């Protein structure tokens, strides 16, 4: 094994970085946005206003509309007209061309979308530029190709669209989640009413502008910004045939209750508490990178985050030492800086939740550690945090924190690793690190999770189905399986 670079002495990094901020001019933010209904931006009927705030600077970025029930009505009605009109009768090959166009326009406006996303969400520009936006384009590109091949997709000879889809998405990957929802729905021939998250509405509004540039027929996609009340009136709307939700298990449960006994189809992509399992034979340097990516990617605001590190006891001390050394090199700060690894926490509410759970970790007896790290004065921030001496009963080992907080537990045998990994009400994802292929497959077989990453983590692809077991929800997004969520087979 090659010798490792010694840990930096004291708090001084080896290298100083000069600031490398991305220009925000390309964002072309407007001071206020209407609702995108029936093919145009419109003033609201119910008329309240929300401010969307930059999590890293607390500045108001823009005013957006808080859509009320009558706005939701108008959007659903527009979607229904489009479904019964041009979109419903359009040949799949034509729908495909619209989706290909949208994919291309996202690529063309990638820089703008990345900047808007980072300003509004607080995630590092490096991530929005290299992950969120390219994956969103890829998703449209992938599903575009399905639109005229539905009868070959394995859902019977004559699969039909469901109708109007009401889609409620979270704030952690605003544009990407919009793409995950819209692309398969449109490919399958549905029309959509999309409700972006309260704190991150801007990229969906830029996407609406892209849909106009793509000349998508009016009403095929409608974007209603707002808060939880807007989402609730959308999922409860009688004119909606399909509800798709990504977000917390708590809200998912309420949605499932509200659609019970109706005709509506439902898919839910909910919370997680993924185990990232490191065996002693793993390539540990690579594993440490994977652990970091698993929990500190997007500030840990990831439903499939590897928030529980399960490490084989014989290498636990080594791995934790290596991890701490690596975390000391992470750069937290201005999300617009191209060298930033850890951005801002999306909202004060989310920050409060992270603080509460981290405090509970200390109270329950776990050992808390963060690298030396200065938090900016403005904005909402939380340092990368590692808890050791964590017991499976601790809240930080059971509850989804949705922040940059890692709980370290150990195991001695593969059986114990499986038992601990599965000892959760969630089942969204899991990670396995080992050099042994047969062990990867044996572990994958036994882990009750919808996605199992081996020697990698937090990797996504439009062809790869994603979704949960147990209380992490049901239905899949991505791949052929993702089409099934929008077809009446």
């Amino acid at each position, binding site marked *: 094994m090659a010798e490792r670079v010694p840990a930096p002495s004291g708090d001084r990094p080896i290298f100083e970085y000069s600031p490398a901020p991305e220009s925000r001019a390309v964002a072309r933010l407007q001071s206020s946005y209407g609702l995108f209904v029936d093919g145009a931006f419109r003033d609201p009927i119910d008329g309240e206003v929300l401010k969307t705030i930059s999590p890293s600077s607390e500045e108001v970025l823009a005013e957006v509309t808080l859509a009320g029930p009558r706005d939701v009505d108008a959007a659903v009605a527009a979607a229904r007209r489009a479904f019964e009109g041009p979109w419903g009768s359009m040949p799949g090959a034509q729908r495909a061309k619209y989706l290909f166009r949208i994919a291309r326009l996202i690529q063309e406006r990638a820089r703008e979308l990345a900047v808007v996303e980072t300003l509004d969400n607080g995630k590092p520009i490096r991530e929005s530029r290299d992950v969120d936006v390219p994956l969103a384009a*890829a998703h449209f590109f992938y599903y575009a190709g399905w639109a005229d091949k539905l009868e070959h997709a*394995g859902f*019977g000879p004559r699969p039909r669209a469901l109708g109007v889809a009401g889609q409620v998405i979270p704030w952690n990957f605003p544009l990407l989640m919009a793409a995950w929802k819209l692309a398969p729905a449109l490919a399958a021939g549905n029309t959509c009413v999309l409700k972006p998250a309260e704190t991150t509405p801007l990229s969906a509004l830029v996407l609406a502008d892209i849909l106009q540039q793509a000349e998508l027929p009016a009403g095929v996609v409608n974007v209603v910004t707002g808060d939880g009340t807007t989402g609730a009136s959308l999922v409860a709307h009688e004119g909606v045939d399909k509800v798709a939700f990504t977000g917390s*298990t708590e809200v*998912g*449960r*309420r949605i*499932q*209750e509200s659609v*019970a*006994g109706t005709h509506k189809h439902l898919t*839910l992509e*909910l919370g997680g508490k993924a185990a990232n399992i490191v065996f002693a034979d793993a390539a540990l340097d690579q594993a440490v990178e994977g652990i970091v990516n698993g929990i500190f990617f997007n500030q840990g605001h990831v439903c499939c985050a590897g928030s529980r590190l399960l490490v084989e006891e014989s290498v636990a001390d080594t791995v934790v030492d290596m991890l701490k050394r690596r975390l000391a090199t992470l750069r937290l700060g201005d999300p617009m800086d191209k060298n930033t690894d850890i951005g801002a926490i999306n909202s004060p509410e989310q920050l409060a939740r992270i603080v509460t759970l981290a405090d509970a970790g200390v109270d329950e007896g776990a050992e808390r550690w963060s690298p030396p790290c200065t938090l900016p004065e403005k904005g909402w921030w939380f340092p990368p945090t590692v808890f050791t001496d964590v017991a499976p009963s601790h809240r930080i080992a059971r509850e989804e924190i949705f922040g940059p907080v890692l709980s370290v537990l150990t195991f001695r045998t593969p059986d114990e690793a499986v038992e601990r990994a599965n000892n959760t*009400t969630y089942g969204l994802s899991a990670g396995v690190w080992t050099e042994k*292929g047969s062990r*990867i*497959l044996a572990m*994958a077989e036994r882990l009750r*999770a*919808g*996605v*199992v*990453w*081996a*020697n*990698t983590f937090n*990797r996504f*692809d439009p*062809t*790869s*189905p*994603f*979704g949960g*077991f*147990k*209380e*992490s*929800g*049901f239905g*899949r997004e991505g*791949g*052929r*399986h993702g089409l099934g969520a929008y077809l009446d*087979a």
Partner: protein
Amino acid sequence: MEVKKTYKLFVAGAFPRSESGRSYVVEGHDGRFLANAAWASRKDVRDAVVAARAAQPRWAGATAYNRGQVLYRVAEFMEDRRDQFVAAVRDAEGGTARAAQRQVDAAIDRWVWYAGWTDKVAQVAGSSNPVAGPYFNFSIPEPTGVLGLVAPHASSLLGLVSIVAPAIAVANTVVVVADERRPLPAVTLTEVLATSDVPGGVVNLLTGPAAELVPVLAAHRDVDGLDLAGAAPELAGQAEAAGATNIKRVARPVADDHDWSRDPGTSRLLRFVETKTVWHPVGI
């Protein structure tokens, strides 16, 4: 003098009476007394769920080939008792002998159909996915786990088989609430299951009022999914809402006039599976 049979519950491969000691009268289509059936309690529901949970890993761990043979053996044993099933269906539903025979034939055929599916479903519902990176990425269907099933009223044997067979073909284990007024063909089916190599606990059957039993199943946190095929609309709506407690997968009721003899396709087979996607590294 004829020796009459006592109709009991079927839990963990055994035939207990209800722990509550209760029973209720089952009448034939013509109102004549047929039998006293066990009136299962909440405790019986919980015991049945425990049995189903205990049986699930082993059933899922069996090879698909083995599960197929077990399901096929159910068909063989039903064929053996064909006349008994015809009589049971006719007692329950009335109608002509021919109609009852057709239903029994179709029920036997349905076991054969699903027996053949056990080792094909992963090939049809699974995939390898061409991700943009050095990974072998594949998706496979896995069982949802423990299911609660509500048997349909209209088709006392074929309807029941049509929801039980696909659920267990993909390695779920089940707790079935038999139709309240027509439970006897279902109990007779459990006697076949008990002797045809279906491991104890894979299928558990409760008789009694759906309105009493279904809510307990729906709210049970160790039940992963509900097939409400035979539930009345109001009960089904309540059960679906209660199922949100632990995000149960729910199949909604089928229409009373549903034709169970139709080609079932794959929709019930794929109703209670979870797609697992694995990213396996590729490299030298």
